[in-house]
């Protein structure tokens, strides 16, 4: 009993999921043989394939995945009536497991109402202000992250399928330009890390392809769930460039481009990353 506790406490203190101690090695061998399974489609590889075995084990165990706490928040918000219209999401959309299945695979989408791209967070808040006549959720609030993750989780395992046809095309081009433009004191573009050097080290960290299929996700560094825009801000900060506001047009266009790059990869929300 005493020794069990000590081992457990050590595992907690190091931030290591206890489960990984048993499942880690076998998993690592499998990965070494290049069997990425559903996490690789053609040349596209999910961030999952660049993550360490402990992190992957956390994501694989739905109970151990701390992001599920945020999904619980999203689930209760779904039923929670708010605003002057006195409606909850469930009043119009019914059971999220049915009505929201596959929806997130298409986002960001072009919105006729606003004349620009709308990502899932913006769509949720649009629904709140227009249809529920409620206050929009604040960006990076537990409610918005929880709701976004909950909705996107209904498409888990389905391939990302973003359209860049029609009116979305010009926004895709803007996103692509952002992606390929050098910025910040380090004078780096997204491509320099995530296209040219995916799999290589940047200091001690492995660069991934920068795919967005797992967002919103639980990041161990953040100790909470965060949005893709938070990740963009972190990246921009790292290259000592200006961080743009959450939900800015530039980031939403960039989200379109980044998500389109990952077309075909399965939605993993909520993923776990280091």
């Amino acid at each position: 009993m005493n020794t069990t506790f000590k081992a457990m406490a050590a595992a907690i203190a190091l931030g290591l999921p206890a489960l990984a101690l048993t499942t880690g090695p076998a998993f690592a061998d499998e990965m070494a043989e290049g069997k990425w399974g559903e996490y690789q489609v053609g040349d596209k590889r999910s961030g999952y394939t660049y993550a360490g075995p402990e992190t992957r084990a956390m994501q694989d165990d739905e109970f151990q995945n701390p992001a599920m706490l945020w999904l619980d928040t999203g689930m209760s918000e779904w039923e929670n009536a708010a605003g002057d219209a006195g409606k909850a999401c469930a009043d119009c959309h019914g059971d999220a497991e049915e009505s929201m299945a596959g929806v997130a695979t298409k986002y960001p989408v072009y919105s006729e109402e606003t004349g620009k791209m709308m990502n899932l967070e913006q769509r949720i808040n649009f629904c709140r202000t227009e249809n529920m006549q409620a206050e929009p959720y604040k960006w990076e609030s537990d409610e918005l992250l929880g709701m976004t993750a909950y909705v996107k989780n209904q498409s888990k395992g389905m391939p990302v399928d973003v359209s860049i046809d029609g009116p979305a095309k010009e926004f895709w081009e803007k996103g692509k330009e952002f992606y390929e433009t050098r910025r910040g004191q380090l004078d780096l573009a997204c491509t320099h890390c995530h296209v040219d050097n995916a799999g290589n080290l940047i200091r001690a960290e492995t660069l991934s392809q920068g795919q967005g299929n797992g967002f919103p996700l639980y990041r161990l560094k953040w100790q909470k769930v965060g949005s893709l825009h938070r990740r963009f801000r972190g990246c921009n900060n790292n290259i000592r460039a200006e961080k743009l506001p959450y939900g800015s047009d530039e980031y939403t266009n960039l989200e379109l481009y980044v998500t389109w790059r990952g077309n075909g990869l399965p939605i993993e929300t909520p993923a776990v990353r280091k």
Partner: protein
Amino acid sequence: MASKPRVRAPKSASKGEVVEIKTLISHKMESGQRKDSDGNVIPRQIINHFEARFNGEPFFIAEIEPAVSANPYISFYHQPQESGEYEFVWNDDDGSTYSKKSKLTVEG
């Protein structure tokens, strides 16, 4: 985020079987070693104690220290000899406690 515990414990087991129990609670686990943007120390607020009881009898106790990450996940084992009720209790630095109960039926 309000602290909400999640527990995965079996509903039934055979007598003497070793069962695994998993718990997860949302908590910021503020270590007390950080400062805010004005240089003031952010007061420590962590879950400092966790206890798992079966029919009121504690069988797993953890004293938790500030190095533990946010949203602590704790898993452990139990060997039930009779039917009963689990109770899991988390103690917060601010004096509040969070708890969750779960029933277990032992067959045979």
